[in-house]
C-alpha cells in the first residue's frame, strides 16, 4: 500500500486510507460519460438561449410533423417544437435528479449519524425507516404527488422521501463500523466529545459512499420522474420534462416513435453517464475492491 501512487493531498479528506489502485487509470468510458454529461448539462442550462422555439408555443396546424428546417426534430401532438422541448426538458429532469440526490443525502446523513451513534434514537429511527422502506416507493410517490399536486417540488419530494431510509441505512452502517476503528476509540480516550467525534471523525467516512449513492439516487430519480409521468402522477405538462414528454408521446409510440426516442435517448444517455461515473467513483473509493487490487 505504501508504495502505490497517492491521490493529491487535497483529496485526502475524501479518500481516507484508500489509495488509487496500482495501475488504476480512468478508462475511456468514464471520460466519455463525463463529456456527455457536461454537454447535456450545459445545453439544458443554456436552453433559453439556444433553443429555436418557445418550448410551450403550440401550433394546431403543425401537430406531429416530421423533422424539417423549422422543427429539426419535428413537433409533438400540440404542435410544439420537439428539439426545444427535449433540450428544455432536461432542466427539470436534472433539477429533480440532483435535487432528490442532494436532499435525500443531506437528510439521510443527519438522521443516519444520529442513529449510528445514539442507541436510544436508533431503535425508534430504524423502526420508522423500516416502515418507510417497506412501503413500495412508487406507490408512496404516486400518493404523495396526488397529495400535493404535480408540481416539481412535490415530485422531487415524492422521489426523495423513499430514498432517505436507504441513505440512513448506509450512513448508519458506515458509522457503526467506523466507530469500532481504533482512531475513533483513541479520540474518545483523548477526551473528544461525542458530537465532535461524530462530525469530525465519523462523518467524513460516509462522504465517499454517499457520493456514490448520490449518483445512483440522481439517476434513479430522473428515471422515477419518467415513470411517475407515465402513470399520470408526474410534473405538470406545462413544464416539459423528459418524463412527461415521453409520457405524452407514448400514445404515438408506433406512429411516431421519435416522440419517445429523443427524450428517451437524452434521459438514457444522461442516466448512463451518471451511473458510469458513479461506478467509477465507487471503484475508486471502495476499500474492499481496493484490497483485491493490492
Amino acid at each position: 500500500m505504501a508504495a502505490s501512487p497517492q491521490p493529491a493531498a487535497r483529496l485526502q479528506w475524501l479518500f481516507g486510507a484508500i489509495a488509487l489502485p496500482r495501475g488504476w487509470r480512468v478508462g475511456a468510458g468514464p471520460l466519455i460519460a463525463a463529456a456527455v454529461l457536461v454537454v447535456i448539462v450545459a445545453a439544458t442550462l443554456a436552453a433559453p438561449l439556444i433553443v429555436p422555439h418557445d418550448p410551450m408555443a403550440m401550433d394546431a396546424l403543425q401537430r406531429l410533423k416530421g423533422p424539417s428546417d423549422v422543427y429539426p426534430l419535428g413537433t409533438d401532438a400540440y404542435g410544439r417544437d420537439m428539439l426545444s422541448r427535449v433540450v428544455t426538458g432536461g432542466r427539470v429532469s436534472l433539477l429533480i435528479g440532483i435535487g432528490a440526490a442532494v436532499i435525500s443525502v443531506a437528510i439521510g446523513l443527519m438522521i443516519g449519524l444520529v442513529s449510528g451513534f445514539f442507541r436510544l434514537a436508533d431503535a425508534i429511527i430504524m423502526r420508522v425507516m423500516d416502515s418507510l422502506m417497506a412501503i413500495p416507493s412508487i406507490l408512496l410517490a404516486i400518493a404523495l404527488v396526488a397529495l400535493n399536486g404535480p408540481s416539481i417540488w412535490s415530485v422531487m419530494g415524492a422521489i426523495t422521501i423513499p430514498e432517505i431510509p436507504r441513505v440512513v441505512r448506509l450512513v448508519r452502517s458506515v458509522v457503526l463500523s467506523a466507530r469500532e476503528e481504533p482512531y475513533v476509540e483513541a479520540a474518545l480516550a483523548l477526551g473528544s466529545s461525542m458530537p465532535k467525534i461524530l462530525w469530525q471523525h465519523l462523518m467524513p467516512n460516509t462522504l465517499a459512499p454517499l457520493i456514490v449513492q448520490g449518483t445512483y439516487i440522481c439517476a434513479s430519480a430522473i428515471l422515477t420522474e419518467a415513470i411517475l409521468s407515465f402513470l399520470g402522477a408526474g410534473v405538470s405538462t406545462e413544464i416539459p420534462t423528459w418524463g412527461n414528454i415521453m409520457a405524452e408521446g407514448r400514445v404515438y409510440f408506433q406512429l411516431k416513435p421519435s416522440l419517445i426516442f429523443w427524450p428517451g435517448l437524452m434521459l438514457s444517455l444522461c442516466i448512463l453517464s451518471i451511473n458510469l461515473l458513479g461506478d467509477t467513483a465507487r471503484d475508486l473509493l471502495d476499500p474492499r475492491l481496493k484490497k483485491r487490487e493490492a
Partner: protein
Amino acid sequence: MLRIQERLHHCKGYARGAALGLLAGAALVSGAGLATPAFAQDKTITAVMHSGLRVLDPIITTAHITRNHGYMIYDVLVAVDENFKPQPQMADWTISDDNLVYTFTLRDGLKFHDGAAVTAADAVASLTRWGKRDSGGQLIFDITESLEAKDDKTIVWTLKSPFPALLDTVGKQSAVPPFIMPERVASGSPDEAITEYVGSGPFVFVQEEYQPGVSVTYKKFADYVPREGAASWMAGGKNVKVDTVKWVTMPDAQTAINAIMSGEIDYIEQVQIDLLPILAASEDVTVETRDDLGYQTIGRMNFKHPPFDNKKIRQAAQMALSQEDVLGTLIGNADYYKVCGAIFGCGTPLGDESGSQTLTSGGDVEGAKKLLEEAGYDGTPVVLMQPTDVVSLTAQPVVAAQALRNAGFNVDMQAMDWQTLVTRRASQSKPAEGGWNLFFTNWMVPEINSPLISPMLNGRGDGAWFGWPKDDAVEALRADFIAADTPEKQKEVAVAIQKHNLDEVLYIPLGEYAVPQARSNKLTNMIPSPVPVFWNIEKAD
C-alpha cells in the same frame, strides 16, 4: 375464478387473522388463475370500452360506462329512438286529455334474471329512486301528485301541472335513465350503491367474472323477449345474437389497437384519432363513427370569484378563445371535429349558433384585450385547472391558457389528476385558497341538447352546477321552455337561451367532435347509437 372465491372463504374461515393470512394462503396454492371458462361453441365479443367499470349502480352515478352497463342488464319503460322520439320499450302509455295523468302498461313476458316477473311495483320503486337522483326526474317529481302501481302491470303517474317533456325525460338515454330494477333493490337510498345486480335487460351480469376496473362479462339472457320491430337507439327490438359479451379495460390505447389488429379483441369503443393511421393498415378492422352527434367540449367559469364574477371579463375570455385552435389541438383530424357554436349541439332539434361568431371564427384577441381594458381587469390570476390523466381533456386547458395570456390575462394553470379536479371544482373557496376560476369538460351531445337536462344552464346560484351562476333570467327562460308545448315554441325559447348563454357566458361551447370506434370485420349489424349497444350485432366465425 370460483375457486378463488372458495379459497377466500377458506381463508376467512380458518385463518381469520391478519390480512397477511390471505397472502400466506395465496403463496401456498401457487399457480391458480383467473381462468375464464372457454366454450368453443360460444360466440363471444370481447370489447374494449372507454373506461373500466367500477360502479355498478347506474342511478347513483352519471358515469357513462355505468350507464352503458345499465343498458346491458336493465331495460327501460320508454326509450327515445334515433329521431329523438320516445318509443314504448317495456311499457306502452296513454296520456289523459288534461296532460296530467300518464298511464303505463307493462308488456307481457318481462322477466328479471332471477326468474321473477317484472311488476308495476318494481317500476314504481325504480322511478322513485331515479327521481330523487336525476335532475330531470327531480323536476317531474316536484310536480308529481302521485305515482302508483294500480295492478301488476299498470303504473299511473299523476301530475299537479302539465310537464310536456315527461316522456322525453323518462325515455332519455343519458345521463341517468330510469332503469327498472326489482323493488327490493330499488327501495334502497339513492345515495347508497346497490349491491344486487339483477335486471330484466337482454344480458345477464356474471358476478363471478366481474373484476372492478378490469373486466366484466355478460351472458345472453335466454328468457328476454325482445320488442317487435327494428332496433333504433335505445328503442326497438333488442335481439341478442351472441352468447357472451366481455368488456375489458386497456389502460394503454396502443395496446388496445395492437390487440384488435392481432384479433385478440373484437371492438374498441373509442379510438384516439391520432392513432387511426395504424388501424388503416389493417384489412380486418373497420373504423367508423357510431354516433353522429358526438361530444361537445366546454369551458366553465366560476361566477363567485374575481375575475369571472365580472360579465365583461367573462366575455373577454370567451372572445379570446377559438374553437378551431382547441379542436385542432385536441383532435387534429378535421374529419372528426366540427366547429359549432350551438350550445344544444349542431344537428339537434334545438341547435342554433346565434352569438357565437368569435368562437367559430378563430377568436378575437384584439377585441378581448379591449374588453378587458374596459372592464378594468386588475391582473387577478385566473386559476385554470388542468387534468393530467384524461386524454380527452388535456389539450383544452393548454390551448386556452395560451389564448387567455395572449389576450392579457394572468393565467395560473394548475395541473392535477382528474379526481383532484372533480373534488376541487366543488369547492366554493377563493381560487387562492383551494378554489378555482376555470375548468373544461366534455359532454355527450344528448346530455346537453335541451335546457331541461343541460346542467350548465341551471341559474340557481349555490344550487347550480359547479360555477354557481345566479341567473334569474335563465331560470325564467327554462320555465318558459317547460311550459312550451309545441316544437316551434320550444325552439324559440331555445334560441333565446342560446343568445343569453353566450352573452352571460354561463359556459363556453368549444365545438364538437366525434370519437370513432374500431370493430373487427367479423362484427356486423351494429346499430348507430350514442350508447354502444350489443344487441342486433352479429359475429361471424
